[in-house]
């Protein structure tokens, strides 16, 4: 896999306690890549020893698909593909009418292990012919006529019994449902290289639609993620079924599955470390961005004024917060600005209605560095903005956590690329098609988890009962992988951002500035005193939010003292400003009511 390089970069940004684990992990992935490549070679060897070289396999798998497309296996003519050279042509000649020898590459789940295997149908006519010549022993390799057929026919059963009993035995042996069973019973996954109409266009979602159409709706509900579940194509009557378990291929998929599972475990560690760091950071920011009550001795948020008019501009002394003249420092306003910049930057996910969702790697990187730039341009990164040393360290840590998410995104991309490449290599070398669940590794992992494998029994009860273990064991991509950056971005949004109350949550709906002094109407809606006074003067009684007649009866008893104190505590500057503005406006109105409007000079 090719992500060693990306991974090295990621290592640099990890907190120390995560690095050891990460180094181990990196070593493991390098080994993994080698092992997977070796196993592909083994699969090729194993298949060749069965007479199933890539060329032969390609034809077999392809013939099945063609049979599907045509609806009948026999429509394909021998001469259709001149470069065919061998097996299929051979068999079509041997079998007089139902010549189709088909193969399906499928996956069985066995106690949580994924076992790929090949299911072949050979027309009985040709078997008998061959059996006659080969007389039941391993003649295959030497058979000059068609060695390949002979060999793989030789494998599962030496003597060809009647097709029916053979089917039954195979079924018992391998715990699969009878392929020629009735419609709707067989739930074997058929994995096709290219998809015929029944398989959908190869796009997983198309297949899902197909499955939903043809399957019982209950089953579809129970397995929303099974995309290519489908019946095995009905083999031609009079053909014999052979199932070949693929040992090396099983090893390949198990190794890959194991690797992906250990990736989950590893990412869980990273996640846990991230959350831990985030909580630390949250504590530090809470300590450095303190409200007025904790830095000024003159202000007590719990104190209740008996008369709201006793609160006037200048009464609040927020200067101690913005300037240095106070006993304890707070970086409340700097942090508020930093978080506002962060929210506006929409680094990882777009919040706009038109393009909601996770951003691309490049876009994320660009936005993250833009955010960092803006912070430092405004002097928020140094002692001009952040007065406390702890704040500056916390900002550094905050940026590091964001960088970690970015690198995780890169890492995840590299991972899915690597998995995709190794599967592509697998398909190319063996001619076995890429199992469709792997085709699109960038889709959410939860969708992938159910893809791989077979439900051995068609009975619905069993299906439902198995559902759970099925998901646990067969998930090739861990469910948390795809969305980990998203989860971490959410965690930042939920842990850090709410530390500092946002002005928008305390604004008056009418004037859009802070609702100071806050009046709570009897209907429960909150506005600033100034806007309500204006409404009362106009005789407007209906609450702007709910139209309840609650405006005119509001009086000083409606002052929300708890909120008023909270606002003075967390928004001292805004509260003060609003208070001044209210007073100016009220004075002007009073003058106007006396007939002395505007600032025009009055000449007596």
């Amino acid at each position: 896999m090719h992500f060693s390089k990306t991974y090295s970069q990621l290592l640099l940004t990890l907190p120390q306690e995560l690095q050891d684990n990460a180094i181990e992990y990196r070593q493991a992935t390098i080994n993994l890549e080698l092992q997977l490549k070796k196993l592909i070679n083994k699969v090729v060897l194993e298949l060749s020893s069965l007479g199933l070289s890539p060329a032969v396999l390609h034809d077999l798998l392809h013939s099945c698909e063609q049979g599907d497309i045509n609806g009948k296996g026999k429509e394909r003519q021998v001469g259709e593909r001149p470069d065919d050279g061998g097996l299929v042509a051979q068999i079509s000649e041997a079998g007089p009418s139902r010549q189709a020898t088909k193969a399906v590459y499928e996956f069985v789940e066995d106690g949580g292990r994924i076992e790929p295997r090949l299911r072949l149908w050979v027309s009985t006519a040709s078997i008998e012919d061959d059996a006659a010549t080969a007389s039941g022993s391993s003649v295959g390799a030497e058979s000059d006529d068609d060695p390949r057929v002979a060999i793989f026919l030789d494998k599962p059963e030496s003597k060809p019994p009647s097709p029916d009993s053979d089917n039954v035995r195979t079924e018992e042996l391998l715990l699969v449902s009878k392929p020629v069973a009735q419609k709707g019973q067989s739930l074997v996954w058929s994995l096709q290289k290219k998809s015929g109409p029944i398989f959908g266009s190869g796009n997983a979602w198309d297949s899902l639609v197909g499955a939903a159409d043809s399957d019982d709706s209950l089953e579809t509900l129970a397995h929303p993620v099974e995309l290519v579940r489908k019946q095995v194509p009905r083999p031609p009557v009079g053909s014999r079924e052979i199932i070949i378990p693929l040992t090396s291929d099983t090893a390949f998929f198990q190794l890959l599955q194991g690797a992906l599972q250990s990736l989950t475990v590893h990412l869980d560690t990273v996640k846990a470390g991230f959350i831990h760091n985030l909580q630390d950071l949250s504590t530090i920011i809470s300590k450095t961005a303190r409200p007025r009550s904790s830095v000024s001795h003159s202000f007590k948020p719990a104190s209740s004024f008996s008369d709201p008019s006793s609160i006037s501009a200048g009464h609040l002394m927020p200067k101690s917060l913005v300037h240095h003249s106070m006993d304890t420092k707070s970086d409340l306003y700097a942090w508020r600005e930093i978080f506002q910049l962060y929210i506006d930057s929409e680094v990882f996910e777009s919040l706009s209605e038109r393009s909601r969702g996770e951003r691309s790697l490049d876009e994320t990187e660009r936005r993250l560095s833009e955010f960092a730039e803006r912070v430092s341009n405004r002097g928020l990164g140094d002692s001009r903005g952040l007065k406390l040393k702890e704040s500056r360290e916390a900002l550094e840590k905050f940026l590091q956590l964001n960088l970690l998410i970015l690198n995780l995104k890169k890492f995840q991309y590299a991972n899915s690329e690597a998995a995709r490449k190794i599967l592509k290599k697998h398909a190319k070398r063996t001619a076995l098609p890429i199992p469709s669940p792997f085709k699109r590794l960038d889709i959410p992992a939860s969708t992938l988890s159910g893809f791989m494998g077979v439900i051995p029994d068609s009975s619905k009860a069993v299906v439902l009962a198995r559902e759970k273990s099925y998901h646990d064991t067969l998930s090739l991509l861990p469910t948390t992988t795809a969305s980990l950056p998203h989860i971490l971005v959410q965690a930042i949004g939920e842990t850090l951002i709410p530390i500092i109350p946002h002005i928008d949550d305390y604004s008056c709906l009418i004037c859009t500035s802070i609702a100071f002094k806050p009046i709570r109407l009897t209907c429960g809606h909150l506005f600033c005193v100034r806007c309500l006074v204006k409404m009362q003067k106009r005789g407007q009684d209906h609450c702007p939010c709910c139209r309840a007649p609650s405006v005119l009866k509001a009086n000083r008893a409606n002052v929300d003292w708890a909120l008023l104190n909270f606002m003075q505590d967390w928004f001292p500057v805004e509260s003060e400003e609003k208070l001044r503005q209210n007073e100016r406006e009220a004075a002007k109105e009073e003058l106007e009511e006396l007939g002395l409007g505007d600032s025009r000079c009055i000449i007596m």
Partner: protein
Amino acid sequence: MAALPKRIIKETERLNKEAPDGITAEPHEDNLRYFDVTIKGPGGSPFEGGTFKLELFLPEDYPMAPPKVRFLTKIYHPNIDRLGRICLDILKDKWSPALQIRTVLLSIQALLSSPNPDDPLATDVAKHYKENEKEAIAQSQEWTRKYAVAG
């Protein structure tokens, strides 16, 4: 002229940044309370395909008082008269200071989708709509083609 209230500045910014679908509203440079508005005829309505021009003015006591809105493009609609005046409750007695330019324009867009001949302003158009709706709709479409399609 007094300084523009914070609320109007905020509303203008947001209209500029993310206008609702099919709606534009731009303030005049010399009078930031006066807006040039366009509304696209909603799909499925007799006004589909047309782009209607309106003017919107925020009075001194906005948002205590509703904005004044008027169609500039001729339109055959039972609730809009020859002068472009609009019969819409939230522009009159049902105004609330919690409403905004955005919500007003969306309401007008909705009015184009569902003409209400039972509460008419243009009585002749409303009568037409009530007596022969098919013909009246055809008339609205005709006017849309004639007056609201550029070029």
